[in-house]
């Protein structure tokens, strides 16, 4: 993969995506070993730069980098550059001076990772770990990985993504990646939570969940922020839950083999019932485990993995 950054799944070709998923599969065997560590990125520095709290994503990236023997620095830069605190540029310059090889960035602003990668402030690789309401590429990659694991393939599968698509970076990244990989995607949500112009996206959309369920191989439930209710996106939590929540009766409408996914953290009882979240169809904990493998693959490939990930103990020299 000749890319330096991972900013958007829209930038990935089928070959890029499959390479990441295949590499992740290879690397996943490390998790089963007694010593869960490869020397691949020894001497490299990975910075987790988080402008927004996300313990689960940060821990996942941290675990991935450490399993590849990279040095990991966690940099929590809460608050915005408009309020007090350092600007993104100055933070970037600081990291550059410290010799970061890769910066994993979570930012509350859409385009935060793009700016970090392209404004000319730094030379290191940038991995987008979620930017505002734009994208979260490694989440989509781990979702695709999970689908492949559970269903055998992504191509030709039908995936419904349900809920607050408007504010969801997970949905955007998944629409790009799953359609690139040949899946058929249907976005489901109230019209208020589907973006303007969604009819031109590479997917279908529906305002109703029930008719979509019987043809799904997978249903991906998005987290719904309770405060959206106050901005008139939907009238009440109960109404949302009734129309778009996945509960046992709805789950029964799914084909036998279909799986239920959620990027977490869940609002049990709002978009997903406890019964569904804890059912055998649920892939939620697998998604977490797969997240580490996929992030290992991304870091490995961006930081110079020219050859097979395992069995190549010397670091790749290409950068």
């Amino acid at each position, binding site marked *: 993969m000749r890319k330096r950054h991972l900013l958007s799944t829209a930038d990935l070709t089928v070959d890029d995506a499959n390479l990441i998923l295949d590499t992740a599969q290879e690397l996943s065997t490390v998790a089963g070993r007694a010593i869960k560590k490869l020397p691949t990125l020894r001497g490299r520095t990975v910075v987790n730069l988080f402008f927004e709290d996300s313990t689960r994503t940060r821990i996942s990236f941290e675990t991935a980098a450490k399993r590849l023997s990279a040095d990991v620095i966690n940099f929590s830069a809460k608050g915005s550059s408009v309020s007090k605190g350092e600007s993104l540029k100055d933070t970037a310059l600081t990291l550059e001076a410290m010799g970061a090889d890769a910066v994993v960035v979570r930012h509350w*602003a*859409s*385009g935060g990772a793009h700016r970090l990668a392209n404004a000319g402030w730094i030379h290191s690789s940038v991995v987008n770990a979620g930017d*505002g309401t734009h994208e979260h590429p490694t989440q989509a990659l781990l979702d695709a990985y999970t689908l492949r694991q559970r269903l055998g393939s992504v191509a030709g599968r039908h995936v419904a993504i349900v809920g607050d698509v408007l504010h969801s970076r997970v949905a955007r990244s998944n629409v790009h990646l799953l359609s690139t990989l040949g899946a058929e995607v249907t976005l489901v949500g109230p019209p208020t939570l589907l*973006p303007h*112009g969604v009819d031109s996206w590479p997917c279908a959309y529906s305002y109703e969940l029930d008719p979509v369920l019987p043809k799904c191989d997978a249903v991906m439930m998005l987290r719904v922020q309770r405060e959206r209710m106050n901005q008139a996106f939907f009238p009440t939590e109960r109404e949302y839950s009734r129309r778009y929540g996945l509960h046992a009766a709805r789950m029964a409408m799914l084909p036998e083999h279909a799986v239920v996914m959620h990027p977490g953290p869940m609002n049990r009882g709002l978009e997903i019932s406890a019964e569904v979240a804890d059912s055998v169809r649920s892939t939620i904990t697998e998604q977490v485990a797969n997240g580490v493998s996929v992030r290992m693959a991304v870091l490995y490939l961006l930081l110079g993995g020219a050859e097979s990930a395992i069995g190549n103990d010397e670091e790749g020299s290409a950068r």
Partner: protein
Amino acid sequence: MSGTSYVIRGAQLLGGEAGDLYVNDGVFAEDAVRGAAVIDAAGLIALPGLVDLHTHLREPGREDAETVLTGTRAAAAGGFTAVHAMANTDPVADTAGVVEQVWRLGREAGYCDVRPVGAVTVGLKGERLAELGAMADSAARVRVFSDDGHCVSDAALMRRALEYVKAFGGVVAQHAQEPRLTEGAQMNEGELSGMLGLQGWPAVAEEAIIARDVLLAAHTGSRLHVCHLSTAGSVEIVRWAKSRGYPVTAEVTPHHLLLTEDLIQGYDPVYKVNPPLRSATDVEAVRAGLADGTIDAVATDHAPHPVEAKDCEWAVAAMGMLGLETAVSVVQRTMVETGLLDWAGVADRMSVRPARIGGLAEHGRSFEAGAPANVVLVDPAASRVVEPGALQSLSRNTPYAGMKLPGAVVATLLHGSATVLDGRVVER
């Protein structure tokens, strides 16, 4: 300033026939004065000095972005002889004291006639009227009032403002932006905003206010001027209002004539502006509106910002872009080269009509003897690659950096005195 004499030899007057212009003592003269300096204007187009209805000079308050001196030097370099300085300074230009300060700074700088715009409401807060009469009666003789940057969204307040300024022949220039529909808005709402995850700024937020205001103008019989309209729907509404004879005028910025929202894909905040860059369809519509006269004027909305206000994330970046020094080039590219306007049309939209809207008796005039010698010479055959570092403005936030644009301002005369000669700003 006066006392200087020029012979402008062989200029194409308004882009038409070649002729000589004689300047003496601040006005055009019948004949050459002995000893007058000769400006060889062969191949150059002579237009009345350009008039900008919408300029942010930033002084007082943000002298790190622009001052009256640097901003008017930029204006002169762009061929302007008069600019309207917007009221959103710090302190806000909502009192006679502040507008007189800006007016005086303009006189001292000497590069341009600076006409301060007065705020409609105190502190631009949209709550109660500023002392519009005091500003009108001040030495600055304010005639254009605007809360630019903010919309006078309260319909009753807007109605009163429109009515009140009739007493002194004023005009309310509205920044049309329905505030509730644009809370947190980042870019034009459409396919791209959804993809980029940037909160949409719907066309209807602009159009709904313009629709309301043209009806208010009709009801009150007062003059409304629509600032920087940017959508096809806005053009339609103004066209309709004019067809009914309502006292409405409108302006469009050079950037809305040339640039589209597609530029935002890289999240570079140099393209962040209010109103936002729109679609190609909108660009086509505003060009057509300017061509048929629905839109009266090109106004730059020159909005300087210091480097740090743009060298950051999109969401926190300031809105606005430079415009004075590239305006005539952008109009040449978008309107003249496309055949939508001839140079006489450019003179009309960039000088005659804006001068009339702003109530400027000494600008936007013909070249007849006795008229104030405000004139600009443009070389339409020239072209240049825009270099932010070479601009007269104190700021660098031009969206045209690296872009090749046609035309060059060779000379600007303000009341008969050169502010630009041989393409260079004259030191004074």
